[in-house]
């Protein structure tokens, strides 16, 4: 029976949803508990004696406002820059014909397979020479180039019927106009999800900032989080949860805002009858 089938799916999906929300609820709940309560009853999702003491404590120990702002700046700069350049490069790879196009594309894509650890030391030396150590510019710079976005956006652009672009060319639309008024609106879901991926990757970046940043004022959130869960940082579990919540709250909110753009708008196009 159809309805039973549907119900089964709903139950399954509902279960999956609960399972993925549980860690978030767990972190939020424990961040509002006192340490003793957390040790006694770690799985309860509603604190018996809710307290914001954990939050007050981390804010008093660290310039968390500044740290959050740093993280945001880094992630935003990397996301905007990479999304824009990826879209431009993808457009060129899809709609321009030039000598060596396929070779160049192949070279770019193969850079995706170079592990971070290989470029880590050369990058560190470069950034040091440039004098950007202990500076968020030094964190941002190596994050500005990435072929993943070119690949993802190019794949999406290739689904656009060529005649749409040709129709615009006949109307004397320039390439930037075509990109902005036709191509980007049609592949918006792909562009937004690429952007979200860039943002979250950059937001969670740990190893690189830890190499570059020395002063706590310049820290990003993953470094702050590490301060509270490492052996030196102590084992106050509820405080670690409070920092975790602060760390994930902004990407979560941004995701909620942008998720509606991910839902595909490219259903039935104006093409063909």
């Amino acid at each position, binding site marked *: 029976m159809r309805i039973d089938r549907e119900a089964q799916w709903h139950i399954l999906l509902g279960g999956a949803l609960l399972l993925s929300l549980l860690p978030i609820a767990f972190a939020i709940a424990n961040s509002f508990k006192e340490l003793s309560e957390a040790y006694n009853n770690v799985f309860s999702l509603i604190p018996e004696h809710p307290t914001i003491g954990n939050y007050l404590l981390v804010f008093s120990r660290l310039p968390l406002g500044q740290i959050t702002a740093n993280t945001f700046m880094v992630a935003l700069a990397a996301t905007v820059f990479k999304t824009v350049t990826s879209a431009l490069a993808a457009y060129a790879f899809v709609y321009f014909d030039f000598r060596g196009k396929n070779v160049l594309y192949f070279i770019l894509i193969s850079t995706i397979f170079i592990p971070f650890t290989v470029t880590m030391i050369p990058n560190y030396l470069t950034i040091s020479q440039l004098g950007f150590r202990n500076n968020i510019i030094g964190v941002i710079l190596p994050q500005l180039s990435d072929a993943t976005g070119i690949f993802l956006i190019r794949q999406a652009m290739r689904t656009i019927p060529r005649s749409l672009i040709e*129709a615009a060319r006949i109307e004397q639309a320039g390439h930037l106009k075509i990109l902005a008024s036709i191509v980007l609106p049609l592949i918006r879901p792909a562009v937004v999800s690429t952007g979200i991926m860039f943002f979250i990757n950059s937001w969670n970046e740990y190893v690189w900032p830890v190499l570059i940043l020395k002063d706590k004022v310049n820290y990003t959130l993953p470094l702050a989080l590490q301060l509270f869960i490492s052996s030196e940082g102590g084992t106050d579990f509820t405080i670690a949860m409070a920092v975790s919540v602060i760390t994930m709250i902004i990407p979560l909110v941004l995701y909620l805002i942008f998720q509606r753009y991910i839902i595909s708008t490219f259903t039935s196009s104006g*093409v063909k*009858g």
Partner: protein
Amino acid sequence: MKEIVFENVSKAYGKTTVIEHLNLTIRPGERLILLGASGCGKSTTLRMIAGLEQITAGNLYMNGQRINDLASGERNVSMVFQNYALYPHMTVADNIVYGLKIQKLPKEEIGQRLQAAVDMLELNGLEGRKPRDLSGGQRQRVALARAVVKRSDVLLLDEPLSNLDAQLRVHARKELVKIHQTYRQTFVYVTHDQVEAMTVGNRIALLHEGQLQMLDTPANVYNRPANVFTARFIGSPSTNILAAHYADRALHIGRQAVRLPEFWSAFLGQKGCRDFYLGIRPEHIRLERDRTDNVFSGTVKYIEEYGNRCGIYLDIEDNELVAIGDKADAWPGKRVSFAIDAAKLHVFDKQTKENIGYPEVYNEPVYQYKSL
């Protein structure tokens, strides 16, 4: 109004040649049909005019100016694509005025042109819809509206009706002619449908494997095919082409022969034409019930029903021949006699497959270039 001239134009993709030495002049304000089977190069020809395909060799002129390297947007042409190419994220109105906004026309002007196009193509009330909410016929009209608001000198149409069902197509055909009569642009119209070609065109350019076979009015293309290919391509069922022989004032097909009228024997004798391909349309073959003199005879192989009449496939001396006739006169296996209309014969050279011409008395109607 612009004249478009192809001068020895060739187009190749790598080693594949699509168009070979095309020479073609499109007159200002005419409706020229590029007709041919798929892969014959007709769309490529159209796209070269639009500037969407690079020209490999030769020259393309528009109004005397060489435009080989002129960008699409600079050519002042508009185009209706086979798949309509409507922008799915824009409303009907936005689709129609997209180009006008790029040209930065004044707002009132854009509004007026939009309204005129919407009225003409009966799109009233649909302006705010997205293409996905339109029927096939409506999308086709939006694509047309987008092409006409530009008021360009040349309107290029790439199989604009091929995605419509048969009834809509007849209606849309008339609409296209109406649009042409309103704006008097040069129409270049690509189709593989000969009925569309005959009904819409002032002139037809028939292409085959990248080569121009014939360029003339629909009536001449039908009645005076320049070569075997044209004779076969135009008309359905297609023209019968048979190897034939002329001797002693008679037309021989295999061992059978019929006397030819004086004007034919004089003409063929004068041309010294003995072996040739004979072309005769199915509707110019008449089954004879009683007559036995001066007729051919053959065996009925197969009957095709068209509703108002039938296609009767005959075997004559191991040649297949199709005639239009009455089902009552024929059934498979029957031996029938048939006469061919001597005033409707076509004779093609055996080697070149070109039409050798017609006797002078033959020129009954004189087909003039249709006035616009």
